[in-house]
């Protein structure tokens, strides 16, 4: 509430106090530019972070939780072996569900290699069964042993070879996104603080005169705080807008194994970038306030 009132107070502003502090020309433009550039980059880092987040989720859930059973058998026996395998799987603890892929699914999987019109019915292509584990997972060696006895043509491929590096890569990528965000936020805060300090240092004379004629510290500080907050807000808003537009213009890369599918925002994630200018304004407010009150204290 109090914070709220202070903010509104600030944004309403005091045109007189604003006049008293001279326009800070280059420092002003520097602040707006920094806020713009940093917001622009932040949008990308945010998008990367969200995309890798999604990717890591997908990879760890899809890959870590699924295994494939492959049944190679003479044409006539495939159906029987498939049913036997499904029966085995249904009684295996740790298996959440198991289901045979349809011909269409198998054809889609094979299309890159054999073309879309593969006569799959006439070929002795192995039947694939997708196994989804539950959280606990199943005993791979035990399952292999049971299958060997009951479904001789079945080979269990539990993706273990792939799983570990993929999940690790995904989580490290997500970490990278988060670290970039923190770096950008930190760099922005540092830049705005330094710009505010530079403006204050350049205005030592103004502060001296204002003091001489009886101005209170908060009166002087407010003019600076207001300016830098508005500048950071403006710059960051423009940068966010530009960054978001750039993301929109990015190629929809559904290619390359779906790696980049999601570098755009999806659904309500579009609201995330709105946080950037607000955060920039809050950071600028706090940084300038701190810098101003400290400088005023030092110069007393």
């Amino acid at each position: 509430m109090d914070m709220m009132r202070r903010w509104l107070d600030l944004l309403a502003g005091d045109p007189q106090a604003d006049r008293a502090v001279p326009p800070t020309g280059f420092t002003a433009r520097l602040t707006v530019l920094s806020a713009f550039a940093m917001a622009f980059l932040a949008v990308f880092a945010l998008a990367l972070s969200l995309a890798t987040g999604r990717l890591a989720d997908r990879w760890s859930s899809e890959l870590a939780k699924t295994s494939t059973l492959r049944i190679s058998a003479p044409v006539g026996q495939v159906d029987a072996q498939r049913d036997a395998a499904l029966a085995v799987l249904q009684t295996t603890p740790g298996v959440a569900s198991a289901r045979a892929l349809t011909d269409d699914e198998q054809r889609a999987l094979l299309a890159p290699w054999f073309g879309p019109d593969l006569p799959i019915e006439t070929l002795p292509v192995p039947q694939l069964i997708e196994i989804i584990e539950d959280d606990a997972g199943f005993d791979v060696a035990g399952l292999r042993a049971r299958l060997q006895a009951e479904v001789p043509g079945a080979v269990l491929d539990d993706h273990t070879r792939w799983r570990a590096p993929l999940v690790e890569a995904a989580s490290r990528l997500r970490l990278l996104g988060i670290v970039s965000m923190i770096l950008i936020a930190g760099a922005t805060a540092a830049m705005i603080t330094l710009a505010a300090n530079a403006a204050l240092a350049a205005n030592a004379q103004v502060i001296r005169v204002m003091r001489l004629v009886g101005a209170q510290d908060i009166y002087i500080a407010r003019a600076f705080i207001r300016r830098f907050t508005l500048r950071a807000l403006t710059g960051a808003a423009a940068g966010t807008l530009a960054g978001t537009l750039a993301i929109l213009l990015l190629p929809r890369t559904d290619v390359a194994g779906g790696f980049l599918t999601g570098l755009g925002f999806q659904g309500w994630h579009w609201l995330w970038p709105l946080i950037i200018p607000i955060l920039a304004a809050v950071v600028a407010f706090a940084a300038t306030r701190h810098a101003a009150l400290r400088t005023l204290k030092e110069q007393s």
Partner: protein
Amino acid sequence: MIELDNVAYSYGGAELFSALNLSLAPGSFHFLTGPSGAGKTTLLKLCYGELTATAGQVRLFGADARAMDRNAVAHIRRRIGVVHQDCQFLDHLSVAENIALPLTVSGRTAQPTDVTDLLGWVGLTRQAAQTPPELSGGERQRAALARAVIMSPDVILADEPTGNVDAEMSQRLMALLLELNKMGKTILIATHDLSLIRTAKAQVSARVLRLKDRKLQLAGADL
């Protein structure tokens, strides 16, 4: 209004003065002289709370200066008009705006007539819209004096207010200060200009203090 009790001050090195006593009674008129570097400006700064005495007590309007926080000092300053020796202005504002600045920062709106009258008094009507760096040395000093009196403060402390103006103008500024003194304002002027003191003494019962060799003394009849 302003009392210095056994006050000493040093800028880190040797003491500039010590055991100094001064009391500015309401409506009194004082001159402060002394060689360059004696500490006149320092003494004035103690009187408006820019410096804090290293020893002794300074009372501004009855309150102990040492106990004041910065907001209290800001409020005290509104009751004391100061003409700084190296006149300090906001270089991006016009002369008129600079003169009205004490009103602005205390949240009052400047009456245009007040400012106009004052500009006429100090002979800056033509220069009202110029910025301070576009003024001549003497014009700056006059603007500083105008700014010091616009709030109609109880006390006026002027540090060498006529160092850069000709004799005629300095008499005119003196007349303004004498006028204010007649209205009951307390006035302290630090100056090297002995002729200024002489003319003033002819019109008001001014006390002349001399700061020399770390001591403040009443100047004799040699002026």
